[in-house]
């Protein structure tokens, strides 16, 4: 589903290179965890996948379902099924959450040549999805993420993911700022979306999230490239020994 080859990325503004020759393949149905220390390029990778303008790809390629992802703008990628669950979801004053959800769902349906959702159908879907994630429906009448707690923001991200039914989900440190109960709810939400046709990339610092969302593969990112790959046991090893040994061994 996703193939990243020899990717080099720098920050457009100051030309600092962050990703330095990254290779990664993620298959349909796979849950891939990407772990790494602070500053290794984890969040940059998620932004590059979603198409944020602040980053510049200087070399390499990203192929998504046979298409060149780098040629698509942010909205086109999303409409093609790439979903980024933000580490820090953005608060947007004045835009009611329900209006936003409806716009997003209909934009993607339009892209796929489907009819727009009727209002009752839309509300029914949102209610059902909100219930699964223990989200108070009244919260969705507020502007997007405004006044939401850290946990509510993360749950709202997973709600959007469920409603938009993406093919490739990228979770950027979704566990940060979550208490144990919220972590369980969010993980259940993600596990519920596991599907043979859907791939999930879980970006995290800690092994804890991977107890709930059990990965098929684990990749260690350091200084902008994958230095080691393995199965879920690699995450346990990291938890025990820290990053230093593995990074030193790879260097």
């Amino acid at each position: 589903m996703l193939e990243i080859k020899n990717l080099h990325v720098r920050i457009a503004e100051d030309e600092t290179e962050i990703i330095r020759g990254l290779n990664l393949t993620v298959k349909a149905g796979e849950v891939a965890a990407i772990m790494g220390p602070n500053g290794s390029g984890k969040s940059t990778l998620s932004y590059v996948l979603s198409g944020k303008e602040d980053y510049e790809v200087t070399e390499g390629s990203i192929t998504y379902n046979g298409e060149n992802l780098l040629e698509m703008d942010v909205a086109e990628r999303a409409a093609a099924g790439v979903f980024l669950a933000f580490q820090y979801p953005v608060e947007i004053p004045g835009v009611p959450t329900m209006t936003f959800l409806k716009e997003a769902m209909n934009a993607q349906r339009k892209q796929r040549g489907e009819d727009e959702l009727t209002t009752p159908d839309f509300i029914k879907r949102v209610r059902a999805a909100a219930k699964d994630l223990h989200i108070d429906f009244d919260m969705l009448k507020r502007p997007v993420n405004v006044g939401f707690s850290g946990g509510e923001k993360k749950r709202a991200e997973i709600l959007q993911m469920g409603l938009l039914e993406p093919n490739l989900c990228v979770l950027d440190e979704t566990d940060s700022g979550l208490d144990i109960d919220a972590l369980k709810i969010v993980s259940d939400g993600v596990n519920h979306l596991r599907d043979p046709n859907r791939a999930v990339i879980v970006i995290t610092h800690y092994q804890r999230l991977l107890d709930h969302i059990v990965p098929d593969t684990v990749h260690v990112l350091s200084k902008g490239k994958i230095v080691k790959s393995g199965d879920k046991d690699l995450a346990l090893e990291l938890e025990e020994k820290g990053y230093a040994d593995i990074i030193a061994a790879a260097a």
Partner: protein
Amino acid sequence: MNAHSPRILTEAETALIDAVARSSFDGDTQVRKAAVDIIEKSGLPTRRVEYFHYTDLRALLKGDFQPAERVSENVARDAGKPYPRLVSDACVLHFRDGHYHDFGEELPDGVTVKAGLPDAPKGDTLEDATSLVNTAVAIGGVSLTIADNTEVDRVVGLAHAQTGVATTASGTRLAIEAGAGSTATLIERACGPDGNGYLNSSDVDITIGEGAVLTYVLSIEEGDAASRLGRISVDLAKDARINLFILNAGGKLVRQELVFDCRGEGGHVEIAGINLVGDESHIDVTSTITHHVPNTTANELFRNVCTGRGRGVFQGRINVAQPAQLTDAQMACNTLLLSDNCDFSAKPELEIFADDVQCAHGATVTDLEESYLFYLMARGIPEARARRLLIKAFVAEAFEPMEDEGLEQALEARIDDWLDSNV
């Protein structure tokens, strides 16, 4: 250039003077003549008149205006059809090219209307140009009275529509008196066809009695070639409150003055404005709030959007007289500039003679927030659509305090119309 050389009148000045001279109006011609004499002698104000510093009326007001004839009732009714009413069960008073037309709509209980032009607004210097022009060209008017202690249960509409049969200079004058303890909502709306360079002059004089609450909505939807000179003056008695919502969504040249005088303790002025400044238009809102007595409050918020080559102006003045201790006045003016060629001038002014007051003002100018745009697009919303959502959210926030949801939606529909043709 010799400052004493005789002035040459502009086409618009000549037309205004002639329009009055040739007018068949039979009202107080003496007052009219006096106003016209000042315009003829001094001309319309330029940038040198501080009150018009950002709106050079002499240079900007253009047109070979004709006097406005009264149209038949059929023509008058047809002229209103392109502008369906904002509130379905409102009682509406109609004005066409400045003339008052009574279509016999039933007034709500407690409201009385007397047809006829109220007294002309005061004006003897160029600072008063908006009032002088109104004195010169106003044709029709009403005096509307809300009885004491009445809660008016239906909205009263004041609908101005231009027929477009000629390029006219005309105007209206309204005197509104909200009796003590009364509550009412009035909606004034000024509409006209695109492509017609008419001049519409509007003067509204509002008196709010003790403890009364008046909600006044002014929706300016003049045609895209039109000029408008408007002034609303509000006098507030003890514990009186005005909620003024103003939407600017049309007109090529708009100068709208808002003047408030808090004359009784406990008075409150609440102003929320949205200025949509489209390509080639010049929109000026100039507000003056004067706190004459202790313990009065004011809160003023404007949200502005400029596109194309549009020019917007907000002058906000707060005067606190020496006796007006414990005044609390807040003013904010936030602007989105959406193109490289538009501009917006914001001039807050505070003149405070009392020593125990709270007065604050703030003005911001920004482009759309990139992080918001990215978030919306990351959910598949195309850029153009995402920008529009954000622009609408930015301005619509100003009208959130409006308690009438139906009215808020109707005004948002006007904002959508503007966005459709300007963004």
